[in-house]
Structures are given as C-alpha cells and as structure tokens.
C-alpha cells in the first residue's frame, strides 16, 4: 500500500505487477482509481453554451463542439503555456463532467472556481463518488452483465447507467491502451459493485504498479512526471488535443492561457519533444536519468521522465524529452543510469498499439 493524496492505494495485489499487467491485456482488470477528482460543472443562471465558451478560456481544446454523450482529453494551461493538469472532459445532458488527477484535484477545483466566476456551479464529488476502471478486452463482456448498455458504447462515449440500483456514469475510456470503461459510482455502492466485477471469471484486481506499466507502454503521460508546469502540450506531443478551431486561423483561435507560446510552437515547432526511448540493453532507465549525445559529452541533451519495464514487450521502456533535433525515431544516444552511460534509441510512441473500441 502507498499513501497518495489522502488515499491508501495498493501498488499491487497478491499476483504482482507483471501478472496484473498481462491479465489486463489478455482479459480484464479492475482498478480502484477513486483518488482521481470527479467534478461536475453546471450552468447556473446561464446556459451550457456560455459555460463551454467560458471553459475554453482555460483550456486549448474544443469544449463547445463536444457532443452530448461524448468525452475528450484536455489540459489546463498556465500563462507560460505549461500544463496545470490533464483531464478527461465529458458532456452529459445539461452539464459537464470532468475527471482530473488526484494530486491536483483540490487545486483544480479552486482554479475553476476562481476563473469560471459566476454563471456556473462547480460540485466536487471527491467524498461522495468512487471511480472504478475496468480495463482489458474482456471488459465489455464483464460490464454488460451489470449494465447491458455497455456493449453499445464506443470509445469515449459516456452514458448514465443504473448499476446495483444506483445512478452511475460510465465512460468507455481508460489509461491502459486497452478497451475498457471507467465507472463513476456513489461511494455507498462502490464496494458491492467492485466485488461483483472482481468475482467474474474474466476479471482480477490490479493496482497502481500495473496501471503505470500499462500507461507507459501505451505512451500516455503521467501528470507530475511526463507533463507539468514546465512542459507545454506541444512539447509533450499532445497537440492533437488542440483542434483546428482553437489554432491560428481557427474560428475560436487562442484565448486560453499560454496561447501565444503554444500556438507559436504548433506553427513553428517546439524546441524539445517528448519521445519514446528503447534501451538497447535490459537495464531499465528510470525518471530523472540524463540523456546524453554520446558516452563522454558532459552536458545532457534531455531527461527521462518515466521509465521502467514493459511486461507486454518483455523489455525496458522509457519516455523523456530531448531537443527536437534528436527526436527522430532511430536516433541513438546514451542514458546515464547509476553513473554509467548505456545506449538507447528514440522509438515511436506508443510502444504497444492501443485497442480501443472505435466503431
């Protein structure tokens, strides 16, 4: 167990990280991710269109164009173009539903309250709602037993569901690169629903260790490691989340914190980029390790921000930032780990291709 943002969270269950990871990719795993912050934002004395436009002043994504019943990825940016947090945002009838990182959730709620002044009500559901992530190719089969509508959902759909008699919100999304669902449930029924799922033949519990190795293989950023206030969305390689309508020449171009820098980086290219790193040997290269042009040059050209072992690949995997000039897949460099420089090369992200249910 590990203490995190006021929660006691398991790193792994009895079977260990590797078995949990592989089970997620072959069947289905249940993760308790209730430490994530669930936030409802409702228009109050105004309408949803105005609320969406107000939120667009804080984020570079298309909030207005998000269809009801759909979810998308986004970031909160600061004035320098850095990232205050990343989140999933969904539109449900009449309101917005946001899932933010556990460590940032209080700060995010305060920030939203300060900056979406008037015209909306912001409800943090930190104490009242649990969040269960059911991830893996057998997730649909498993969840359909509790919620038959699950099978009709596509990747990034959100639906109201009645599970165990309680009003729940289900999204078809996750943080593993696999098909799967996240289920927001009232805290009182969370344990019962989790047990019903975990008792199914396909499903086993999994902890934060497997969640981390799964997301690394899927090339997904961890806030606080791969992205933070010092990285822009363009450097992080997540500018796909910034649609044409918010870019230079778009109908709702800019207008979010850090827009000048971020749009300039989209147009002219960033100075550095997040890359996938494939160590040539078997030694894992972990967060904080320096990246060097060769075995001797004293000054680094980048830094590893996430790294460890990828169980599905059976090999070490890392992510980090390097100067754009060194970001082409196949570029070789050295990473300093425990005082020794070991060879590695840039590899395209993700390490493991996602298997989302897009159609």
């Amino acid at each position: 167990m590990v203490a995190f943002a006021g929660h006691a969270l398991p790193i792994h269950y009895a079977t260990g990280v590797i078995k949990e990871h592989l089970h997620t990719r072959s069947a289905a795993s249940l993760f308790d991710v209730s430490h994530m912050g669930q936030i409802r934002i409702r228009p109050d004395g105004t309408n949803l269109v105005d609320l969406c436009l107000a939120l667009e002043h804080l984020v570079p994504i298309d909030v207005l164009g998000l269809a009801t019943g759909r979810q998308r990825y986004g970031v909160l940016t600061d004035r320098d173009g850095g990232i205050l947090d990343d989140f999933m945002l969904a539109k449900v009838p009449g309101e917005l539903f946001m899932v933010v990182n556990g460590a940032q959730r209080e700060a995010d709620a305060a920030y939203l309250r300060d900056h979406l002044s008037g015209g909306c009500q912001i409800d943090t559901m930190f104490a009242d709602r649990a969040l269960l992530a059911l991830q893996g190719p057998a997730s649909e089969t498993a969840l359909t037993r509790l919620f038959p509508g699950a099978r009709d959902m596509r990747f990034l759909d959100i639906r109201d569901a009645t599970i165990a008699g309680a009003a729940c919100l289900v999204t078809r999304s996750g943080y593993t690169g696999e098909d799967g669902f996240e289920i927001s449930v009232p805290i009182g029924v969370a344990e019962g629903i989790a047990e019903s799922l975990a008792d199914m033949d396909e499903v086993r519990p999994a902890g934060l260790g497997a969640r981390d190795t799964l997301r690394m293989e899927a090339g997904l950023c961890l806030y606080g490691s791969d992205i933070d206030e010092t990285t822009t969305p363009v450097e992080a390689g997540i500018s796909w989340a910034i649609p044409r309508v918010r870019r230079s020449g778009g109908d709702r171009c800019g207008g979010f914190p850090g827009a000048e820098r971020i749009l300039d980086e989209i147009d002219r290219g960033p100075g550095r980029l997040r890359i996938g790193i494939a160590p040539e040997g078997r030694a894992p290269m972990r967060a904080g390790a320096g990246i060097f042009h060769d075995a001797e040059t004293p000054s680094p050209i980048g830094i590893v921000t996430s790294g460890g072992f990828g169980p599905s690949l059976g090999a070490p995997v890392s992510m980090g930032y390097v100067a754009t000039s060194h970001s082409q897949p196949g570029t070789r460099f050295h990473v300093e780990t425990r005082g020794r420089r070991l060879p590695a090369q840039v590899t395209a992200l993700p390490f493991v291709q996602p298997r989302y249910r897009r159609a």
Partner: protein
Amino acid sequence: MKYTEEHEWLRQDGDLFTVGVTEYAAEALGDVVFVELPEPGQDVSKGDEIVVVESVKAASGIEAPFDGEIVDINAEVADNPALINDDPQGAAWLFRMKAKDGAAFDALLSEEDYQAFLRESGR
C-alpha cells in the same frame, strides 16, 4: 545459513561464501526484471554496491557483506531475473566470494536473529 540486515543470505562452503537475497527481500522487491552481477575476480570491500536488482517498482543495490574477492557469479539469474522471485534462497544465488577474513561470517545474523530483526523493524 547466515543473514544481514540488508536482507542478504550467506552460506559457507569451506572458504567460499555464496550470497543471495532473502525471501523477505524478494517479496518486497516484487517482480524482478533485471540483475547486474559483478565480474569474477573482482576485489570488493564491505559495503560496496556490487549487485543491482531492479524490479518493476524500483532499483536496489546489494552490498558486499565483507572484504574479499568474487570467485563466481550465477549467470542464470542474469538471464532469467524472475528466478529471484521463484527461488530466492536456492537457485537464485547471486555470487560466490572468498572472504579476506572468514571470521566476519560468524558476526552475521543467525536465522533466529534475522527473523527477530524483521519483526522488530515492523516487517
């Protein structure tokens, strides 16, 4: 078999000492994915970090239990690091060394002392 507070076990065979990590350590490390061993013939001093064991979770160094010389390493464990989880106190021995002063062995923890140490340190 003797033990250290760094969760190593040692077995004496004449003037040679075989060293590995304890079942407790293997459990605490979790899935081991990488092991780096010293070179046979290498002279080592007590406290030198001579083995690196990396699990999915983290990297840990294993120290030389006393001054001496590495005479043999277990290449099988480098090829198959998961052996440390499967059989830490048997097949997954890490290295054999010759001690400069064999009496150092007697000063290590007995099985009983090691179990007491684990209990006292809340493990």
